[in-house]
């Protein structure tokens, strides 16, 4: 999947894939994101963790404008995110997203799920889109299910299809929002394996997850969020062995303690 990491038509050669500068967001009076500063280099793998409701999902969803921020600046692949719909769509084409609940399209087969965006957004001919989709489905080891509908697959299989669907757009960055937390334990590994491979191939990844094993193996940096703020960020080894803030320590002891 090295191709996915290098193929970035129309984007600048900036080394920074994602920049968030002083990003703030409110839901009414509720201040969800407070002064977020975050820089993600090309090829970097970031794991984001934190207690429920701390704003992790909101933060990564701001990157592809599934949520709108009210203050601050977000730049993706050198393109500043504005209100402009065309601009937003351009950024979304280069940012893949994997959701907690897969969000596959139930009325389309696995193959169609993967082809629909390449065909309709990138205007690829069907044959080409299908060939590419099959390639990615093979990489996530699910090619034999291509003709099935999402409802006929297990959760782990569905999530791997969702990853393949995103990869078919050749994204420069992949966002994962708790990709394994809706899965039964025996299916978590098959999804994490795919994600580890993706990381090893150099994909830029922002991953909200509580899979600390995954964070330790692949993350370049771990970010801890609480109450809409980035409390701590560090390489995995010092992050886990020597957390600085009390809240991080408490969180880690809760999550690793049981």
């Amino acid at each position, binding site marked *: 999947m090295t191709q996915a990491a290098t193929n970035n038509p129309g984007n600048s050669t900036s080394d920074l894939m994602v920049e968030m500068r002083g990003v703030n967001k409110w839901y009414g009076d509720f201040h969800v994101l407070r002064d977020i500063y975050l820089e993600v280099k090309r090829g970097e793998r970031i794991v984001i963790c934190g207690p429920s409701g701390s704003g992790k999902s909101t933060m990564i969803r701001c990157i*592809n404008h*599934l949520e709108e921020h009210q203050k601050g600046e977000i730049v993706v692949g050198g393109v500043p995110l504005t209100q402009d*719909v065309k601009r937003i*769509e*351009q950024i*979304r*084409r280069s*940012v*893949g*997203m994997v*959701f907690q*609940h897969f*969000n*596959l*399209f*139930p*009325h389309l087969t696995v193959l169609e799920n993967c082809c*629909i*965006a390449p065909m*309709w*957004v990138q205007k690829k001919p069907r044959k080409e889109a299908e060939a590419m989709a099959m390639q990615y489905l093979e990489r996530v080891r699910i090619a034999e299910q291509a003709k*099935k*509908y*999402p*409802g*006929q*697959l*297990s*959760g782990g299989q569905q999530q791997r299809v*969702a990853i393949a*669907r*995103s990869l078919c*757009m050749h994204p420069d960055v992949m966002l994962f929002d708790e990709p394994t937390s809706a899965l039964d334990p025996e299916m978590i590994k098959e999804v994490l394996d795919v994600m580890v491979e993706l990381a090893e191939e150099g994909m830029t990844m922002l991953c909200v997850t509580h899979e600390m094993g995954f964070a330790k193996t692949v993350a370049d940096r771990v970010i801890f969020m609480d109450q809409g703020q980035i409390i701590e960020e560090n390489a995995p080894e010092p992050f886990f062995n020597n957390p600085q803030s009390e809240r991080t320590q408490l969180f880690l002891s809760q999550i690793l303690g049981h």
Partner: protein
Amino acid sequence: MIHNQTMIEQRPAPSSSVGAVAWLRTNLFNGPINTIFTLIGLYILYLLVVPTVQWAFINADWVGTTRDDCSREGACWVFINARLSQFIYGLYPSSEIWRANIVFAMFFSLIGWLAIPRLPFKRWVAIFALIVFPVISFVLLYGGYFDLPKVPTHRWGGLMLTLLLATVGMVGALPIGIVLALGRRSNMPIVKSFCVVFIEFWRGVPLITVLFMASVMLPLFLPSDMSVDRLVRALIGLTLFQSAYMAEVIRGGLQAIPKGQEEAAAALGMTYWKRMGLIILPQALKMMIPGIVNTFISLFKDTTLVMIIGLFDLLGIVQAALADSRWLGFSLEGYVFAAFMFWVFCFSMSRYSQYLERKLHTGHKR
């Protein structure tokens, strides 16, 4: 959520080996109270069915040309027979009826083709039905081209007019309804309030009023040298009226689609219209088939109201025929016939929707 791929079809419970007697005993005659109810029910049924069958079939007269061919003991279907061509084509000139027949034949073949799943080229047939067929129908029915004599719309009537009103209403109301439903969910304030006002206006006004307004008031607003055909006015009124209802049905369907679907589509870079057209609407419309068909059925029956603005749909022409002095006193036959025709169409639609529902249910949902 692993669905078994070779799910076993549900089968009806095995029938009792003792057969009908056992069924009667367990279902109708188990205990004294049930027996009494069953007997009362059977008696009422007897009182209703026997005279009806006698009237409609046994004592009925079928052949002949005038009222003297009827014995007056049962139904006089001779009346329907004699007037059938009027009931179907209205006052369409009899020398030109072949034109209407071609349209009828195409209409039913197209519907059949689209309704029967096995037949291929659905997309092309649908495009033909929506674009080419209306043009052909108009040219054939109205004439004025290719040496076809013009048949003004006030001569159109009967079943032909009913089907025309219903079909145009349905085909027009669906897309307008979709646009209104999407508009009502939009977060652009102007679009949203326009759609809300539009929908609530049409839903709050009785169809009769709409038709009156279309026929009486519209000409007052238009410049006097501009006249819009009465049929066209009725069609516009009917379509707009139905599209408001359709919009509400579709909005219900849109609400039932999880938010994640649109988010996933958006995350892939799809534009609003692609998200709607490729992801949201196909799912919503599938779920909304029963609601949409219900709206269609009520529209089909509502077309009878055009009678009050002087158009002779199936019911209108039957009623007009009842006033014929040669056929006085056959109103029952006339109304039974009209009711039966309406029932056939509405019942077919309802059965087809049930069939579709079953098909989608056993298909690959979720």
